């Protein structure tokens, strides 16, 4: 992104957009040959070749000779800083695996659906296989991998990676994730709670950016929260801070997976919402419910707004304690937008102290479902990249802009 943006429709703006197309395509596939790039972007081979040459010169792309179908070919990948980190985010029904370089640029990511109550052994096996596969596509050896961070949608003990509250993820109980994953990939492993990772993602790249005190609420199948106090993620004594979904909201409510009664999750978790629609709407998925609510289905919208009210009431209590300046809603359910957010706003206004509610803004997360994965990448960088200056120090220009500041020697060449 140049300081002065070119006039729309001009030759230079066309060039700019062609560059963006090429970079997007490479990001999507991890690495491509020039011929494949031409096909994927719809640009002519000559244009691709010119742009690749230009971007290689300024250090955005990297080319290596390879052979495809018996012919010589230029394999193009994103130029990256030495050293890579792996990020694995487990959800209840899927996992995301990403590889990023030390500047935080995602080089490749994959999503894999998982069964309900999936197992730790199978899940970790697949994560390790995916990481190995992905390292290959970005032309990197395992030696370059500095470490892997994992996020689980449950409270975890951060040193062992054992889920600290059995029953919440049945297939993962008593599994020392840190050690098991470490044995599979032979690299340092860090484990954290997914809601905290969502908060970290929004803090670094999204709706919590620039705020000092933020309550991040993740509403989906599970309900969790991440606390940002003094611009720092608050972990708590063992990493279980922010188990918002297990606040008791109805002492006579249903038994929760955690063993308590009437947790917020048993009242407003997505699976409970879907269950309550089973009689009237049949079996729906979370995506169906959100789509129907968006299209104006009253039943679906009602169920979501009721959940919003309950989440808002619980959040109001938390706001009284913490006095945050921002409440950010993330997770799948937050995609319902104002259908969920308005009742949350109303409930916080009604049930928290006026002084607390006064300057409080309630917003939707900016990163959507990407928040957690980006948070895990950030967490991995903080854990495994020793020189913190790579992250936020002097070299930050290259970390943020897709076009790193070119080396002076390269400039003189042109």
């Amino acid at each position, binding site marked *: 992104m140049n300081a002065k943006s070119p006039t729309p429709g001009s030759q230079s703006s066309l060039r700019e957009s062609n560059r963006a197309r090429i970079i997007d395509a490479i990001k999507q596939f991890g690495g491509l040959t020039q011929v494949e790039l031409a096909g994927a972007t719809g640009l002519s081979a000559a244009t691709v070749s010119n742009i690749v040459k230009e971007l290689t010169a300024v250090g955005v792309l990297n080319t290596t000779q390879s052979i495809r179908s018996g012919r010589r070919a230029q394999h193009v990948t994103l130029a990256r800083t030495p050293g890579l980190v792996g990020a694995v985010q487990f959800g209840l*029904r899927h996992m995301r695996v990403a590889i990023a370089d030390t500047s935080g640029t995602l080089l490749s990511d*994959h*999503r894999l659906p998982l*069964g309900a109550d999936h197992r730790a052994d199978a899940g970790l096996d697949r994560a390790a*296989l995916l990481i190995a596969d992905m390292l290959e596509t970005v032309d990197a050896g395992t030696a370059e991998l500095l470490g892997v961070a994992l996020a689980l949608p449950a409270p975890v003990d951060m040193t062992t990676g054992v889920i600290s509250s059995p029953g919440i993820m049945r297939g993962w109980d008593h599994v020392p994730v840190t050690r098991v994953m470490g044995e599979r990939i032979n690299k340092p492993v860090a484990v954290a709670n997914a809601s905290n990772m969502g908060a970290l993602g929004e803090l670094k790249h999204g709706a919590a950016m620039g705020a000092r005190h933020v309550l991040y609420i993740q509403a989906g199948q599970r309900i969790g929260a991440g606390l940002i106090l003094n611009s720092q993620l608050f972990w708590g004594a063992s990493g279980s801070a922010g188990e918002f979904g297990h606040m008791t909201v109805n002492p006579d409510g249903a038994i929760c997976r955690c063993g308590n009664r009437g947790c917020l999750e048993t009242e407003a978790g997505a699976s409970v919402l879907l269950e309550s629609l089973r009689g009237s709407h049949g079996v729906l998925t979370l995506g169906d419910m959100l789509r129907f609510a968006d299209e104006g289905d009253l039943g679906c919208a009602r169920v979501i707004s009721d959940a919003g009210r309950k989440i808002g009431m619980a959040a109001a209590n938390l706001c009284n304690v913490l006095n945050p300046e921002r409440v950010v809603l993330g997770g799948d359910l937050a995609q319902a937008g104002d259908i969920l957010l308005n009742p949350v706003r109303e409930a916080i206004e009604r049930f928290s102290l006026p002084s607390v509610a006064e300057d409080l803004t309630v917003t939707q997360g900016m990163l959507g479902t990407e928040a957690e994965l980006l948070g895990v990448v950030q967490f991995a960088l903080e854990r495994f990249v020793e020189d913190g200056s790579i992250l936020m120090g002097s070299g930050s220009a290259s970390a943020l802009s897709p076009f790193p500041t070119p080396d002076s020697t390269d400039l003189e060449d042109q």
Partner: protein
Amino acid sequence: MNNAVTGPEPQIAPRERKPLISMRGVSKYFHAVHAVSNVDFEVYPGEVVAIVGDNGSGKSTLVKLLAGVFTPDSGTIEFEGEPVSISSPSVAQDLGIATVFQDLALSDNLSIVANLFLGREYNTRGFLADHQMEDEAVALFRKLKARMPSIRTRVSALSGGQKQSVAIARTMLGNPKVILLDEPTSALSITQSAEVLNLIESLRERGLGVVVISHNLAEVQAIADRIAVLRLGRNIGTFHAPDISYERLVALITGATDA
């Protein structure tokens, strides 16, 4: 424009869910062998139904009955509420039932576009309308969120997962309502299976009924809404995927317990 790709977006209202395909008491015998006997089976729009079972349990026969390869010896098949006789694969295709068999039936020496439109090429005054076909292919892959290097690549240069994606995409050109997939992820690497599984999810999102035969129970549990268990040609139960555990599924397949 041709409506193959840009056809109307399927919309299913939740309450008016009628099965797309409904099989009632269907049997198929090969002389003395009861390949499929007295099976009930349904597919609704916007759902993934997995068929699991041991070798010889009748999974493939069941799918071939739907694909028009075999005709049932007894029982009825209804498509969108109308009784039909699926007497040949082309009848199945006309109804809107598309099948991707294990061997994929792609031509390795042709490009992706050529494979997609093989036998139904667009032409303008006798010349192939390459641009139109390419545009449509690109739009199709984008819609399916499938990752494809270049649509002009020869199929022989593709990975197993990409070949599977091409085969699935090809069936989409006929605007089918039901897609039958026979072992879509066997012999694929983990990244490739991930892509095929995501593709199956996006077929589901587009409102299609998807029938998947698979041996991989972890994958079945990951993508299926319902799981039909066959044993020795009988459907011994159809379950909502979240309600059934891995152990119980294995027990049902092997015959350790009855439904």
